[in-house]
């Protein structure tokens, strides 16, 4: 996987030092750039930079990596497979206890709407009736990732693409937003381009940029009704956001005023696009958004995708779980372990077996008592008494690429920490919200 195993010019000694400082327990991990374990890299972002798209965003991280995302939408006819058609008509017959609402023909619903001019009511009814029939298909989203210097069928790029796609499609809520009517849907093309060379593992950058671009995405307002051929308002100013924005102003205000405005948060029905975060573990420490150097000493790395759903279910909020965990209704979409590039780093050689440091000499001639290589003084029978030890066990201060995997508890803790951090509103969710 070439995108993770970038050339990294760190010696085994430097790796060992970095690993040591990142796995400190008492003062917490000391990161090379002075961030706290859960802090993200500083970034600059802007949206709406590409006029030819429905939504676009650009993010530049402080380390110089930069990505641009453009979202384009097209109206597409929904193919109706024969069995689905049969099933859907049967389904409508089944719950035709409300024959008026489910509507025989579009004509009838149109007249009904004219009679009841209340817009809210109509919307409610539409939502209630639509819950059954609004469907989405994973085909409606097409995502492409381009990373300079890598072929687009490179397995690293494919892995990134499928991870980002998976986050969008995992719960099936996102594609439902692309529904127009039974016959038509939006097809969304997300084109993600990394402008700079991949200086660090680009997943968090690409995910954040996609997130922003989706937040900024607007679709023309639909003027036609029901199952007619879709006709749109040609006024771009009237275009609706894919992720409705009306909570942005209120959310920002309420966030500034008070944290315990859970009622206001519940009233705002906005969900947001999923986001994928990169988390790594060193020793017992969990570190967010690792840079390239930090990732090079990771014991394990996990990409976690979370999304904020509509906070329609009040049960989890009212439970006895501390309020911080469920401030926002977050749910887990996908988790993938990532092959940490630390497995490909060169190992260090301990002094006891290093001929240049007189290590093998000590072993071969046990009479010399050079104190510098003391740990091997008990050997003598075997040719390299310490060779086996260094092969299987860790020597303090000598770097060795990690073997094996991560403990069950560690993986669980990483995922839990992501959910907890992402749930706290002052973090990046709010930070990102400002940009629009």
């Amino acid at each position, binding site marked *: 996987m070439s995108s993770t195993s970038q050339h990294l010019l760190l010696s085994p000694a430097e790796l060992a030092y970095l690993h040591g400082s990142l796995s400190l327990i008492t003062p917490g991990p000391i990161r090379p750039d002075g961030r706290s374990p859960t802090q993200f890299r500083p970034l600059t972002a802007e949206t709406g930079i590409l006029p030819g798209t429905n939504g676009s965003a650009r993010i530049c991280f402080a380390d110089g990596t930069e990505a641009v995302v453009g979202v384009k939408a097209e109206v597409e006819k929904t193919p109706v497979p024969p069995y689905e058609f049969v099933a859907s008509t049967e389904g409508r017959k089944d719950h035709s206890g409300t024959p008026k609402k489910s509507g025989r023909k579009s004509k009838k619903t149109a007249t009904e709407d004219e009679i009841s001019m209340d817009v809210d009511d109509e919307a409610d009814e539409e939502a209630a009736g639509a819950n059954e029939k609004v469907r989405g298909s994973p085909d409606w989203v097409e995502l492409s990732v381009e990373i300079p210097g890598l072929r687009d069928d490179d397995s690293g790029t494919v892995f990134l693409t499928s991870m980002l796609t998976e986050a969008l499609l995992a719960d099936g809520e996102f594609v439902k937003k692309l529904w127009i009517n039974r016959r038509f849907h939006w097809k969304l093309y997300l084109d993600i381009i990394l402008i700079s060379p991949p200086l660090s593992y680009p997943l968090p950058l690409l995910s954040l940029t996609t997130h922003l671009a989706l937040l900024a995405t607007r679709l023309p307002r639909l003027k036609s009704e029901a199952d007619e051929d879709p006709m749109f308002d040609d006024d771009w100013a009237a275009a609706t956001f894919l992720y409705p924005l009306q909570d942005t102003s209120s959310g920002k205000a309420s966030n500034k005023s008070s944290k315990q405005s859970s009622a206001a948060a519940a009233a705002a029905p906005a969900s947001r696009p999923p986001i994928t975060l990169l988390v790594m573990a060193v020793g017992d420490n969990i570190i967010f958004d690792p840079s390239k150097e930090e990732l090079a000493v990771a014991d394990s790395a996990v990409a976690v995708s979370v999304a904020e759903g509509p906070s329609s279910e009040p049960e989890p909020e009212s439970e006895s779980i501390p309020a911080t965990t469920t401030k926002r209704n977050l749910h887990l979409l996908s988790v993938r372990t990532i*092959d940490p590039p630390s497995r490909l780093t060169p190992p260090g050689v301990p002094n006891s077996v290093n001929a240049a440091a007189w290590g093998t000499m000590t072993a071969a001639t046990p009479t010399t008592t050079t104190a510098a290589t003391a740990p091997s003084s008990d050997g003598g029978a075997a040719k390299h008494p310490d060779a086996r030890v260094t092969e299987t066990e860790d020597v303090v201060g000598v770097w060795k690429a990690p073997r094996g995997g991560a403990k069950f508890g560690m993986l669980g803790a990483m995922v839990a920490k992501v959910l907890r951090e992402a749930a706290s509103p002052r973090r990046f969710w709010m930070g990102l919200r400002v940009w629009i």
Partner: protein
Amino acid sequence: MADRRRINGPVGATTPPIFDKPAGPAAAKTRDAIRKIFLKTGITPSASGSAYLELENPNPQRPGNTSLKLSCTVHGPRSLPRSAPFSPHIILTTHVKYAPFATRQRRGYLRDSSERDLGVHLETALRGAIIADRWPKSGVDIIVTVVEGDQDRDSPRAKKDDEGWDMMNVLSGCITVASAAIADAGIDCVDTVAGGVAALVCKDDKTAPTIVMDPVVAEHGSILAACCVAYLPTRDEITNMWFKGRLPGADMMVYDKLMEKSLVACRCANRVIVQELNETVKKGQGIS
């Protein structure tokens, strides 16, 4: 004489065609273990290590039902070409390829994105298990061919998202079979890694979702979430984890349960690997 001016109806009486209703999904069997696994090593003589894995067919009576069949070959460890840069570790290359006839939809000869994705997952799972620094300047190729995918073919509900859940099952099979093939090739590992899947399924909207091990995709009404894990049992470590889906309610509790269940599936699969390797060793001792 027949009247040629107009189109006449048929002479005899006819009945309108009645199309048979498509068969429903197979009934879900409640089982407390994974499907039976057939595993055999050393089936490809030209490779340095190889294994074949087949899952028990859950519904052998139904016409088009198939089970998972995987074949894995390991070539290497062998020296890298002279032009390759120095590597302190063994360079692992994994290929997962569906045979063109393996799934409902034909697969081309070029690997598509899902196959490459599976390859990366498999690589992550194996890299944790292999002791890579014992072979500097060398490479090993691990090639898994999916002879038959884990799909329900007679059910007409060709749901698109079924494909994704299938991939989980295929991946866990790939991990198990590759682990056996690596052991057959004699490459040093910290442990035999095994794959397992658990899923959160629900029959319909009314019933509460349940967690099942080794889900047969065709049997379940809908799969809400699934989790595929590669696990080293003696070290109690996870080398690869792939979870996706949507969990209802309190996330972490269901998530943890799902993980635990897939670890149980991994242990079951690992028992098969160990047994097969033991048999191979015994056979080898018997000959010499």
